[in-house]
């Protein structure tokens, strides 16, 4: 090949020189850093949580129609058959265990009526296990709950099965979906 430059080489050189004149290396690194940090932050944003909720098939906890009430109170609608200490008072939320505890995969499941839309929702009462009793916000409600001889619908049991520890700390009320008739 000859040593003469083609028109493509000249065009590329002109573009590269123009880019070097209008930007500095430092600003490029700074912008790249911004993009990288931004990309890492995306999973923390609500939109990412929305997507994760949709992927898991569970309704978005914060967007139930007519959501009202205080999750730290026993009369909160989702706690209609909760027996234990409310995790919202123990460092967790109505559907997430406090740090340092593990949610039991095995649980009992009932329904509660959401006063916001009048619909019955399927609620999973999971115990959070691995620490001593929280001792805050004790709650005992029994809507739809059954005596111990119907084991899978009894809320007096310690439901820390399948967890590393059998010590129960508090309980959550996870919405699984609308109960359809």
């Amino acid at each position: 090949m000859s040593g003469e430059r083609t028109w493509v080489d000249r065009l590329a050189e002109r573009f590269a020189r123009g880019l070097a004149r209008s930007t500095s290396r430092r600003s490029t690194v700074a912008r790249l850093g911004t993009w990288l940090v931004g990309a890492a932050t995306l999973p923390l944003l609500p939109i990412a949580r929305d997507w994760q909720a949709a992927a898991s098939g569970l309704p978005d906890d914060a967007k139930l129609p007519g959501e009202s009430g205080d999750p730290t109170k026993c009369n909160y609608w989702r706690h209609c058959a909760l027996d234990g200490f409310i995790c919202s008072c123990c460092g967790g939320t109505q559907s997430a265990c406090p740090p340092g505890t593990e949610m039991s995969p095995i649980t009992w499941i009932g329904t509660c009526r959401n006063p916001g839309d009048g619909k019955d929702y399927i609620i999973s009462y999971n115990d959070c296990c691995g620490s001593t009793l929280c001792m805050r916000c004790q709650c005992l409600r029994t809507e739809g709950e059954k005596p111990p001889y119907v084991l899978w619908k009894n809320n007096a049991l310690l439901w820390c099965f399948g967890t590393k520890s059998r010590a129960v700390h508090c309980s959550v009320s996870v919405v699984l979906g609308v109960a359809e008739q």
Partner: protein
Amino acid sequence: MKPAGRSLGAFLLAAATLAVAPAARAWTPAVNYALNCQGCHLADGRATPGLVPALAGTVGRLVHVREGRDYLVRLPNVASTTLTDDETADLLNWVVRRFGATELPRDFAPFSAAEVARSRGTPLVDVDGARRATLEALAHPSVRR
């Protein structure tokens, strides 16, 4: 009030209470699965190995033989459920199709309320024996894989 009057009053009160008591709600089989089975067998039927037996990949094989169908209905948490025979049959059909679709026999006959009533009426006392009978029946060469 005299005792007879009190008894009559109590009877009338009870009758009136029954009349206004809401009828039990009829959920779809999917909701009945959530309310009666999912707590232990989990939403995907895979359960917790070593603690709770999996439905996924298992339940579709059991219904290949009469002994397996009978065993499924007589399991204590199935037989003693508060669901009616009709609801239990619908739930079982939903479960085997949902978690055993690939193992189901091609000529699968759905559970009926009559079959559920017949099987759940005979308590499962000899659990090991019923399991053994099911496994032996499944191992028979005449059972299509």
